[in-house]
């Protein structure tokens, strides 16, 4: 029961964040890019609830718009990684033999690199930009899905219902699509939820290093970076985007954990 509550709480927070991201133009009190140099580093005012940054921009509005960047990078990364991972994992798992050997060694090679370091190198070469961040994160991101899919498929393909389908003359395409994939949805969903959280943190890290979105676009990571030099004089610059990342990742982890427990309970 308790785990269910956590799952629903997490899902509610994530849904709220998605809603905030979608409705950003309607709910943000100020345009996120509007500067007012004379109004810099305000900690709180009736007009600026969360204060302003060094250029006098409203932090609340920038945090709201930042949700768009973080979530869209997260979803795009997960979708792309999932698509690649699913294709490669299914091929390796179903076909086995040298195809499996080759693809899984490729995965091993990629996993030998620290992911964030590879992403830093990649964006440093391509230059900053949202699309580059997504590509950089997918570079390694797909490997986890590929491994998961392959493992599940190897376990499933020896099950009786698969043998039955084959005996009835189903071709490999049909076996994968109609019998194997539906059984993969639950583990993939869990993996994707954790992947989303990881991608949001990675985007934050890259933007913090100046390799993410270009200024003045607000992203939580770049807001943290902007506020870093003012930690001693205006700590609110880093507090709110930091909290936003923390809450989002926490909520996604609640959802992931909740789903995992439900799935395991069912398969037991």
């Amino acid at each position, binding site marked *: 029961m308790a785990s269910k509550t956590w799952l629903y709480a997490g899902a509610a927070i994530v849904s709220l964040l998605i809603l905030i991201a979608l409705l950003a133009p309607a709910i943000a009190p100020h345009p996120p*890019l*509007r*500067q007012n*140099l*004379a109004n*810099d*580093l305000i900690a709180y005012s009736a007009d600026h609830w969360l204060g302003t940054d*060094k*250029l*006098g921009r409203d932090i609340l509005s920038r945090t709201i718009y930042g949700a768009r960047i973080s979530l869209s990078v997260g979803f795009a990364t997960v979708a792309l990684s999932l698509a690649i991972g699913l294709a490669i994992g299914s091929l390796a798992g179903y076909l086995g033999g040298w195809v499996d050997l080759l693809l899984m060694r490729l995965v091993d090679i990629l996993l030998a690199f620290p992911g964030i370091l590879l992403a830093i190198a990649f964006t440093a070469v391509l*230059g*900053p930009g949202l699309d580059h961040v997504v590509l950089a994160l997918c570079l390694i991101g797909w490997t986890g899905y590929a491994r998961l899919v392959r493992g599940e498929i190897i376990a499933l393909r020896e099950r009786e219902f698969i043998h039955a389908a084959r005996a009835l003359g189903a071709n490999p395409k049909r076996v994968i699509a109609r019998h194997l994939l539906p059984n993969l949805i639950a583990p993939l969903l869990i993996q994707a939820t954790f992947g989303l959280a990881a991608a949001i943190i990675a985007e934050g890290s890259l933007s913090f290093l*100046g390799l993410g979105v*270009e*200024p*003045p676009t607000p992203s939580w990571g770049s807001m943290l*970076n*902007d506020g*870093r*030099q*003012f*930690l*001693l*004089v*205006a700590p609110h610059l880093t507090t709110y985007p930091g909290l936003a990342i923390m809450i989002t990742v926490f909520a996604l982890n609640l959802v992931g954990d909740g789903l995992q427990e439900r799935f395991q309970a069912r398969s037991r």
Partner: protein
Amino acid sequence: MSGCRSNHDDRPADYLVVGIESHPIQLDPRYATDANSVRVGNLIYNSLLRADDKLRLQPELAESWRMVDGRQYEFTLRPNVKFHDGRPLTVADVKYTFESILDPTNQSPKRGQLKQLAAIEQTASHQLRFHLSVAHAPFVEQFTMGIVPTGSLRGDTPPPGSGPFKLESIEAGAKVTLKANADYWENKPKLAGVVFKNVPDAMVRALEFKKGAIDFMQNDLEPDMLPWLRSNTGADVSVHQGTTYQYIGINLTHPILQKRQVRQALALAIDRDAIIKHLLKDSAAAANGLLSPISWAYDTTVPRWPHDPAQAKKLLDAAGYPDPDGDGPLPRFRLSYKTTNIDLRRRIAEALKEQLQKVGIELEIRSYEWATFFSDVKKGNFHLYSLAWVTIMDPDIEYQIFHSASMPPNGDNRGRYRNSEVDRLLEQGRVESDQTARKEIYRQVQQILADDLPCVPLWWWKNVVVKKPSVKGFLPYPDGDLISLKNVTLR
């Protein structure tokens, strides 16, 4: 926790610890190009002449000197000057220093500056004469070159100098320690030594200062940190006039930027005063050109571009770039603006973007790490960029920046500016030896450049000195030189 405190212990008694933002790369004055190498090197090496705190050249190793004619300079050396290893400093060492720079096998980056030097002749035991191939008034600046002993090779260990401090140790990337030269010919420095501690992050430097691990810092601090330092560390913070000139470089081969009206509109659209007041907390002064009021050649009548967005819009309309939708989101045109990825530089870029947007110019900010940025700037691969010129002494620097013969790699005319009148004046300015006549020439150059705007003037940075109240006797130099550390006491 012990790691946090260790810095207190590695400081020898009576040594001043100076926090710097980048480690000196090459202390040998013949090869030093980065600012910190030059500043630390100036404490180790003496030169024939040295600029004072008003940027006027004063004799140092020279007991006396004179310009014989436009092509000859004669120096009489001070007797009894010794290098840190005990060898006497002689005419031969001065001759060797300059000749080793001219030797192409040594690949000194300063070789080009000595292009006009034809020969050095010893005329008496303590006397020597420099012969130039052509009259070249700004050549006197070359006499501020640090002198090294005969036979000094380019190597990992910098050669000994004859200055107030001698090199004690270098910890690569971390710190450079200098020790007072007890036999210094002028008088022994009051400090036992100076440690230049490399702390790249401005905030960490401020925290180290608060902790007491650093006694002295100059520049490269976040302007908003200054009030904090004053009230939280009891620091003695002072701001002094400087010569470092920040500007927006313009690619004059770009079809839009070729038009003078567009460049003037850029100058009018920028609200320098607001940026200086709020973003820079008055650590700069609005500029109207490369030469600052400290320079003898500065023309006080050069107009300053005010902040006038309405006039900027009119000029852009007249130049043939009407705003397609008035105050709507569509711009008249788009330009890229390149800058380094240092926080303050990026923030300035964002403020400029907003100000130009108000007159209908869309700026696309691209920030890069230094090497990529600088290579693009040299290649002319930009629309707009922002950089600064440091240590401006002779107005002949305008030749290097604006003469049409100075396009990279022959000089620093990175915007590819061509103006035959400016060319003619700049050529005249370097062969004329009379300072009054030169002043008139550079007055005309400044007037033309202020109107033609091959680059948009932003501001001159001030020198910000942050020190413990116990540090006494420091005299700030407009170019940020630290030579007065030889007179500093630490109580």
